[in-house]
């Protein structure tokens, strides 16, 4: 099989992988903010709920979560399609790690900033969104970029719950052609390419955020 024929037959799978990466990261970003801010809430119930979510999804394995949602959840009456299962589980898993990134960055902003905001008579909401978050955002981006790569890599797991992503297509192609080295080598290169593109994207975002708030260099 020629190189281009190989690439062509993997394209459909690539679309699924990209869709999962995009969908999963949207869910993860949403959950990371909700749970990250939730852990800093003044309400004990909100704090505890966020903490339980973070510990459960960080403490168990992504593949175990995927299987649980795919095999066990339908028995409890919740039926999700494999694609939705993939997006939800990837989002929940990486979102839990992301919550710690959000929390860590917000906690790292010095108390003098909060005191200054209090002195300016800002409400708690204003303190958070106008003073703390804009500064914390820049510190969140590098670890968030690493998590994005982790999420992209974790999308390969959905091939084990029958979704025909890049890895799944690769397995079929390997079985057909028996060109193991070529097929898997190409798969690895494609994932590496996606990863490098994501890194470039996150770096560009860091520069924009740093420029927007005139705050030094993005480290």
């Amino acid at each position, binding site marked *: 099989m020629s190189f281009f024929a190989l690439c062509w037959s993997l394209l459909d799978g690539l679309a699924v992988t990209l869709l999962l990466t995009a969908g999963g990261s949207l869910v993860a970003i949403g959950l990371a903010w909700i749970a990250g801010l939730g852990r800093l809430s003044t309400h004990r119930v909100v704090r505890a709920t966020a903490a339980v979510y973070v*510990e459960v999804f960080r403490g*168990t394995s992504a593949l175990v979560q995927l299987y649980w949602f795919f095999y066990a959840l339908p*028995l409890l009456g919740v039926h999700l399609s494999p694609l939705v299962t993939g997006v939800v589980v990837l989002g929940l898993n990486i979102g839990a790690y992301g919550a710690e990134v959000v929390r860590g960055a917000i906690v790292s902003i010095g108390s003098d900033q909060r005191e200054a905001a209090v002195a300016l008579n800002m409400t708690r909401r204003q303190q958070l969104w106008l003073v703390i978050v804009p500064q914390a955002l820049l510190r969140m981006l590098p670890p968030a970029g690493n998590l994005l790569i982790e999420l992209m*890599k974790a999308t*390969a797991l959905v091939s084990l719950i029958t979704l025909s992503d890049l*890895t799944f297509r690769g397995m079929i192609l390997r079985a057909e052609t028996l060109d193991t080295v070529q097929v898997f080598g190409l798969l690895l290169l494609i994932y590496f390419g996606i*990863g490098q593109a994501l890194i470039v994207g996150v770096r560009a975002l860091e520069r924009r955020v740093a420029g927007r708030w005139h705050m030094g260099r993005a480290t």
Partner: protein
Amino acid sequence: MAYGACNVTFDWSIALETLPALLSALRITAFATVLGMLAAAVLGLVWAIARRSPKRMVSSLAGLAVEFIRSTPLLIQIYFLFYVLPEIGIVMSPMFTGVIALGLHYSAYLSEVYRAGVEGVPKGQWEAARALNLGRLETWRLVILPQALPPVVPAMGNYLIAMFKDTPMLSAITVLELLQTAKVIGAERFRYLEPLTLVGLLFLLLSLGASLLVRWGEGYLGKAQAR
């Protein structure tokens, strides 16, 4: 399983029945984690030293390899070794193939950990080693590593936990570890809920326990260094 089976509830008696099989599978998981970590610790050190090689060629190749291994999925690396190694005449059990894949993947992460440790050693130590006329090997063995390694041990603990949570991927190449055992039990009894939930709980308990240990280690090291 039919659609009518919606109102299944968690059955503790089934959970208790499946627990012994899961606990014995946990030994396989633990074995893979420990061996994988040993491989990663050794190989990671090789990467870290290669990246500081005075030969540009060696250091940039090592850097590229680490970046490549780190940003491609572990699952495909496992498949790659599983299918390619026999083709080039290396036949071994799926378990050991899996251990090598885990070790290789995490060696890339650990090389970053080592690098942080090595960068933490003051530059004067390198100069002192040179002044004492130590060779490259002796400099690493006698001067740099004894100072670079202890501070990074807790960080390595975090990767041990991460690797532990990645061992279920070995089920993809037929290793009967914790998750695969739960799946087999589920298929035999048509009860996925209890075994899969138990596997989740086992992972949760063990990784939470381990991360408490790591945090304690960090505190202990912090105190030891302050002294």
